[in-house]
């Protein structure tokens, strides 16, 4: 038994080490925090030093969802869908106070914290956070990944609750608009 324990803890350490330095992020950038994200990913602050700056613009190839900027009620179902499209293992970073709590946008349009939509691993407050704070957050996430015990098993098995009605995702929506929107004569050429 002891041998087995020693073996799994070693493999856990190895897998954690491999995962924490190969974070492929999906930047879900919706607002002003995006500027700070660009500074972070650029040469000056160089997130690549931490093995976490290779953005994949498809959720299926990424394992770190960086939610950067204000999330409104109308974009919320899109965020949920992107999260669900990512394959395990996956982590979520809430970048900026808007994503952590809604920030000062305590109003009719803004989601009061993305943790009401998707589970969050690391919160980085600040409006926008300094790149150093984000680097600190990424390092904290790496520590967290290193300490995970799931090994090769799937980390998250919970099923997220259905979003309330305004959040309902309608995959047919774009097509419905394209097909049913009234068009003025002559508009077809511009499609």
């Amino acid at each position: 038994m002891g041998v087995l324990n020693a073996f799994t803890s070693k493999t856990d350490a190895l897998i954690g080490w491999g995962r924490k330095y190969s974070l492929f992020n999906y930047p879900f950038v919706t607002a002003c925090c995006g500027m700070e994200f660009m500074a972070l990913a650029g040469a000056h602050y160089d997130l690549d030093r931490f093995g976490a700056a290779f953005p994949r613009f498809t959720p299926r190839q990424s394992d770190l969802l960086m939610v950067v900027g204000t999330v409104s009620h109308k974009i919320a179902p899109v965020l949920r869908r992107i999260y669900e499209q990512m394959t395990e293992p996956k982590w979520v970073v809430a970048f900026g106070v808007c994503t952590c709590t809604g920030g000062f946008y305590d109003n009719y349009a803004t989601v009061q914290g993305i943790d009401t939509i998707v589970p969050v691993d690391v919160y980085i407050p600040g409006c926008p956070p300094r790149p150093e704070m984000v680097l600190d957050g990424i390092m904290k996430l790496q520590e967290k990944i290193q300490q995970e015990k799931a090994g090769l098993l799937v980390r998250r098995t919970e099923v997220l609750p259905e979003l309330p009605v305004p959040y309902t995702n309608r995959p047919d929506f774009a097509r419905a608009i394209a097909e049913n929107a009234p068009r003025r004569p002559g508009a077809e050429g511009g499609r």
Partner: protein
Amino acid sequence: MPNTTALPSVERLLPQVRELLGPKVLASHCHRGDETILVAPGEIVSVLAALRDDKGLDFDTLMDLCAVDHLPRRPRFEVVYHLVSLAKRQRLRVKVPVEEKSPSVPTVSGLWPGADWFEREAWDMYGIVFEGHPDLRRLLMYEQFEGHPLRRDYPVNRRQPLIGPRN
């Protein structure tokens, strides 16, 4: 900062506008070169058509259409049309007072197709009905949204019933 004292409140367009529209101009003022006229809601389509089609004024572009909530002033709302003449490089602001009880204004989307979404936005945010609009749906908020969020009596942190208390 621009030197605003250098902009005299000289009426350049208003005499011409008054001559064109006659008694339809209920009031007018000129603040540092920004000229504004006030007309009745029933007249807005004919007034804007006249301003657009007049060769001397030539207001060919509807730059913006918005609404203002003046609560507690009466009449409560105002719909504001910003006209621009690209050729003559001049601007005019046309305001329409709207009562609080069943607020409505005739649509001008027949004059400028671009007014369509402006009017949808004004409906969405202020609840002003634009009669005759081809498709008066909410533009920014979702269908199930209750109320009109930019009205002054909409509580700033009110939660929508379908969204829940936390959000």
